[in-house]
């Protein structure tokens, strides 16, 4: 169903051979996504870099953005790097407006995003 959030976790090899965790979101990112999004976040290691894949997400509201900020908050504590890809141009604008771009690079696609980590 469109309204449900599914988060899958993945691992890819970065440019320097180091492993990158990828969280892939599907559906909506809203207040009902908390368990799915933060639950998946807890399963990834606390030291390697993390990619957030929004290419299958259609709707993100301010409660969903708050969840993303919570991940950035935890990443900031441990010094983990986070990069984002797959946002529509509209949500790239929105993420920039709220300042997320300052803490996580916003990229067009997975290879471009992975290359920055």
């Amino acid at each position, binding site marked *: 169903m469109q*309204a449900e959030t599914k988060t899958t976790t993945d691992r890819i090899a970065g440019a320097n051979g180091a492993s990158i965790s990828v969280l892939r979101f599907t559906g909506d990112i*809203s*207040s*009902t996504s908390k368990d799915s999004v933060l639950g998946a976040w807890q399963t990834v290691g606390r030291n390697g870099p993390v990619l957030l894949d929004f290419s299958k997400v259609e*709707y993100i*509201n*301010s*409660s969903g*953005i*708050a*969840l993303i*900020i*919570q991940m*950035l*908050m935890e990443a*900031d504590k441990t010094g983990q790097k986070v990069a984002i890809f797959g946002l*529509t*141009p*509209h949500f790239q604008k*929105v993420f920039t*407006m*709220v*300042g*997320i771009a*300052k*803490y996580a690079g916003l990229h067009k696609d997975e290879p471009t995003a992975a290359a920055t980590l």
Partner: protein
Amino acid sequence: MTKTTGTSVEVRLPSRLGFEKVAMGTAASVAALMGFPPERIEDLKTAVAEACINAIEHGNQLNEKLSVGVILSASDHELEVKVVDNGAGIAKQPPAPDIDRKVHGEEDPRGMGMFLIQALVDEAEWVHDSSTNSYVRLVIRLDKENE
């Protein structure tokens, strides 16, 4: 194309989170009928969604006996959207979100709805109408180029 000037469309939604998406669908259709470009329709959808979420959550406090009204009025050059709830309105405009404070845990990660609304539309105004009504009024203009 369809003449839309002077027309108004009204929607009533239940005060349940998720139904903001119905208001988004209706607002997008009216804006498309008026000839707004796709990027501007996306801006409107997000602003209307945030206004409805606030009306559902803060204004009507998730009381499903109350409904949220969305009134879309088209004129020659602009689309006005009023999102009406039965609450007492906002006490005062919250400060703009500060991402540094949020990321460092010094500020609630939430509290971005009103900021986004103001950033995305050409006019935004919060009105406490009567003892039983508050609304936010949004305007997007047709002639304004979207940056």
